[in-house]
């Protein structure tokens, strides 16, 4: 068989991966083998965390709603659980994100609405 050199096929493939990994720290952006590994790990994390992000933000919104509702001193209902129960009972269908934003921007509005729903 005649001798065939591989040429730069492998190098072409690896430069694309290197571009992806160019801002990583230390050996993770310099050494060829670790670059391939780190790209795979990065993409796996990104995929997994796109779903985690949704969970995380929902938790943060719940936390914030609880914090605002806790300042509702007029009634005994100063908990997130009470607010949500009354929201569903009164068919006030808003998602957590909007309720949390309402709490930050117009806290008093939210408390007024919450009191009305509870009655």
């Amino acid at each position, binding site marked *: 068989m005649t001798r065939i050199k591989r040429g730069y096929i492998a190098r072409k493939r690896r430069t694309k991966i290197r571009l992806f990994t160019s801002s990583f720290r230390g050996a993770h952006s310099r050494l060829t083998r670790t670059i391939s590994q780190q790209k795979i790990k990065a993409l796996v994390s990104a995929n997994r965390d796109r779903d985690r992000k949704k969970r995380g933000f929902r938790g*943060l919104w719940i*936390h*914030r709603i609880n*914090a*605002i509702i806790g*300042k509702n001193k007029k009634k005994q209902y100063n908990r997130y659980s009470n607010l949500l129960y009354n929201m569903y009972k009164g068919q006030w269908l808003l998602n957590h994100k909007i309720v949390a934003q309402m*709490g930050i921007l117009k806290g008093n509005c939210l408390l007024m609405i919450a009191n009305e729903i509870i009655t």
Partner: protein
Amino acid sequence: MKMVNAFNMKRAAAGLRRINLDGLRWRVFDAKGQILGRLASQIATVVQGKDKPTYTPNRDDGDMCIVLNAKDVCVTGRKLTDKVYYWHTGQVLCLKHFSLNIDIMVYRYVGHLKERTFKDQMAKDPTEVIRKAVLRMLPRNKLRDDRDRKLRIFPSSEHPFGDRPLEPYVMPPRSVREMRPRERRAMVRAQKAEQQQQNTDGTKKGKKREAPEESA
């Protein structure tokens, strides 16, 4: 105690430059008659900023917490004598690394397990009691030290922050559980003993003459 107060005052105004934002509120907690752990958990939530609607877990946005009357904080049960603070002393003096083998020899300053009861700690420095309680309730992350800097604890009601806009913190209502039967009986007995003492104080000489007759 006066020495401790002077030291506290100097320390109190010291680290304020490091705290960035001053959109923070200054909340005042009165520890007089409060139970240590329950007070500390409320302080911990306020210092973390968890009662604000703009709470963000990666940013330290808690309010400045001033705790007054630290020497009047209470504990239930037998904790006054039985609660012990432990800590370990001793340090690594030098690490000797032998290159051929993987031996590492560690030379240490020898220390031991030290302990101090709650009572002694209160006598020595009552602010440390509350500080430890709150610090151990905060999450162990990079923000913990910053949150520590926001806590100012004073043994009595004097504090150098009189010119700031202070807001008193109202503790949430607490439901105390029913006394256990044995405790209740002990309390009833104590009340009866007090009543008898009051009666004897009222008519001292008369009772003294009557008592030996009753015993006889």
